């Protein structure tokens, strides 16, 4: 059978450096194909060429056997290739139907828009896909997961038969992800070809039929997922044996590091109590919006709790603003490094030093040499790959950006580390380095509280796990006594 999409020898260089040397890819109709690779493997370049964002330097792309070349994403979409991007950009103040038919609104008399037909068509499309979304709902009232479904509907309204999904689960919870997967299954049954890009291997094994691995801009291998195991796939992605994914080197002590009792914030969290010990990695698991991040916001002074007590090393503390928390030795690696973690346009050095300036320069004038030394130390300690520490942090890969955030907080020599999704959007290799950093910190007697929506990660890294459900605690469990199923069950 003729493949839906066949790509051979795709090449692309940026300023003389090859980002993609030999992109090969073959997608069969009615299948889900995982595109794997670390950061810098060439996946994004590959996608952007297929979508017509970048022009290729060489190679062929055959869509249903015919060579194609796109000048823009709109052209790609017209010929039936759609992408659901990692960061969606809907028009928030328009309805679902208006978003789906944006630029192609059915016209009524006098050049107006035939809203009735548009809403009817959109609703029919959504119903056919079994998405329980109203076509008249405003986009801004939808969850991220629902917006993704609308994007899928939009792609299908263009009669797309090839759909790329770039990290679709990075911003949605476990339950919503399962929803998305069943939608993908239906598309597959309908004969569409889906290309699934994700760092989360367990998802790939759950929904994909076949895989293609890129590494360092080149094609490494492809095949059926049935013929390969997790270890084998990881070996292909990183190019070497990595050993165990989660190596725990810390041993929890009996000394309480952070005690939280009866913490409440109206409408966000209610009566949260736990004790994280020194040397312990304390995990918090829950769906998006279950109140996980809100706990950290209260602990770090971003939000004011209405009730509750926070104790550090057995001493009650009052935290009104982030500076108070920082003075107590708490560090907070936030969920979204681009939104709340980094000043992207500023340099690596300035980002590393941002939270430590008063300590490094006690007088009004900055002490450049100390900043230089501090940033050099963190870059070495965490093996941050940056050409110079004066380059903008936006030029780094996701994993290195995350290490800059960690460096910023480790520079303060914290006693308690609050980590919110510390490895989101980070590739397999960098993930392990971050796990090592976290373990080393705990092993040296630090207290770690970590939020993650990746079940493997939370089970692999935490000593105990607090499950959050609708702003309340659904119990604290030892890692030995629980498994993925019971965590998902408790959280929903």
């Amino acid at each position, binding site marked *: 059978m003729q493949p839906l999409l066949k790509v051979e020898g795709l090449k692309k260089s*940026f*300023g003389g*450096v090859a980002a993609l040397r030999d992109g090969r890819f073959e997608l069969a109709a009615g299948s889900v194909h995982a595109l794997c690779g670390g950061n810098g493997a060439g996946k*994004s370049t590959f996608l952007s060429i297929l979508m017509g964002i970048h022009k290729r330097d060489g190679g062929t792309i055959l869509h249903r056997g015919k060579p194609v070349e796109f000048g823009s994403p709109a052209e790609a979409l017209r010929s039936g290739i759609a992408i659901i991007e990692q960061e969606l950009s809907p028009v928030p103040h328009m309805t679902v139907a208006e978003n789906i038919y944006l630029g192609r609104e059915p016209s009524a008399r006098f050049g107006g828009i035939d809203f009735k037909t548009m809403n009817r068509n959109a609703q029919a499309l959504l119903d056919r896909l079994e998405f329980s979304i109203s076509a008249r709902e405003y986009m801004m009232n939808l969850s991220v997961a629902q917006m993704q479904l609308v994007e899928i509907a939009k792609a299908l309204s263009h009669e797309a038969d090839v759909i790329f999904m770039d990290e679709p689960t990075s911003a949605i919870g476990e339950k919503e992800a399962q929803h998305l997967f069943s939608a993908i299954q239906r598309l597959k049954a309908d004969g569409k070809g889906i290309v699934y890009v994700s760092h989360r291997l367990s998802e790939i094994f759950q929904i994909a039929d076949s895989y293609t691995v890129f590494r360092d801009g080149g094609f490494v291998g492809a095949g059926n997922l049935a013929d390969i195991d997790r270890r084998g796939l990881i070996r292909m992605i990183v190019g070497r044996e990595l050993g165990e994914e989660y190596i725990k080197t810390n041993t929890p002590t009996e000394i309480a590091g952070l005690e939280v009792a009866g913490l409440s914030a109206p409408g966000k969290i209610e009566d949260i109590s736990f004790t994280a010990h020194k040397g312990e990695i304390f995990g918090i698991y829950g769906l998006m919006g279950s109140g996980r991040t809100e706990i950290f916001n209260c602990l770090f002074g971003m939000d004011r709790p209405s009730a509750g007590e926070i104790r550090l090393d057995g001493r009650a503390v009052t935290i009104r603003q982030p500076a108070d*928390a920082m003075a107590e030795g708490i560090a907070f690696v936030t969920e979204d490094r681009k939104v709340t973690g*980094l*000043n992207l346009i500023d340099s690596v050095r300035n980002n590393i030093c941002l939270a430590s300036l008063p300590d490094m320069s006690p007088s009004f004038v900055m002490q450049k040499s100390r900043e230089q030394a501090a940033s050099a130390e963190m870059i070495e300690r965490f093996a941050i790959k940056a050409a110079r520490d004066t380059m903008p942090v936006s*030029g*780094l890969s996701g994993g290195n950006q995350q290490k800059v955030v960690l460096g910023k907080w480790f520079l303060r020599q914290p006693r308690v580390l609050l980590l919110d999704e510390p490895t989101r959007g980070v590739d397999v290799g960098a993930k392990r380095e971050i796990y090592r950093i976290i373990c080393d910190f705990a092993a040296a007697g630090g207290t770690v509280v970590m939020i993650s929506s990746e079940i493997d990660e939370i089970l692999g890294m935490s000593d105990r796990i607090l499950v959050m459900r609708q702003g309340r605690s659904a119990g604290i469990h030892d890692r030995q006594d629980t498994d993925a199923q019971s965590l998902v069950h408790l959280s929903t």
Partner: protein
Amino acid sequence: MSSIENKSSSSWLNSDRRRLILQEYGIFLAFLLLVGILALSNEFFLTPGNISNVLLQTSINGVLAIGMTFVILTRGIDLSVGSVVALAGMVSASFVTSSATAGIAGAPYPMVVALAAGILVGVCCGALVGFIVSRFSVPAFVATLGMLSAARGATLIYGGGKPVPALSPDFRWIGTGNILGIPMPVILLAVVFAGSWWVLTRTRFGRYIYAVGGNPHAAKTSGLNVTRIRFLVYVISGALSGLAGMILSARTGSALPQAGIAYELDAIAAVVIGGTSLSGGVGRVTGTLIGALIIGVMNNGLDLMGIQSYYQQVLKGALIVGAVMLDQKRNQGG
């Protein structure tokens, strides 16, 4: 995206360096080019008298534009500077007038009193705006638009709609005097520039301003007092507007109620031409100074060439838009 950046990091470095050089010196080169063209086309242009004249004409806009840079770096804008110029100019003048009717009781006072009063008026206007913007999250555009109107009204009320004439000679010295042949306003601009440059590049507060403008959320999570930093930039802009108002009334010898109308637009133009991004976090006070000089030199040069001021305005408009277009292109090119 990340994979592209990671892969091509070494080539990116080259284009990054190219871009840095352009950003660093592009505006300066444009300025030299303009000066060169004017020098060749008019022999009078480079005479000491004319240079001094250009600097003098640039000084008030320069001081305002430097204050504006602080505000724009934090993603704000200050539309009130022109009105604050008038109010501060009038209040300070009322302390040093020898006119029996226009001054306040006991005038004329020593110059220092008037200077303090003028700066204080600017600081108060800035503090009020800053308080509203930082505490109540009112968009800076709206808060300063309100102050634009309110301060103008206050000026008219304070002076009864009439100018305050006959200012004392020692007060007038800050506008008309000179040290070693350098006009006082130019010296004041140089001092303001040097101080601002030092604050923005060498102090913690300067770093905080960039951090707040670059990403206010990240700044807050890093323990910065974002509210206070936002507040302070408006106070700085207000204080410098106060200073500019006094220079203006000292130069002209009387404080006019309609002084400073539309000055905010020239100040914003200088900041923008100087390469500071209206979306915050990027920009330099050196660029702003050169931006102000470009406007000053252009006005002067076109005057010398005998081109009507109406045309000058059209050209200035084209220059502002052109500068930002180039800036955008440069940023995309990298």
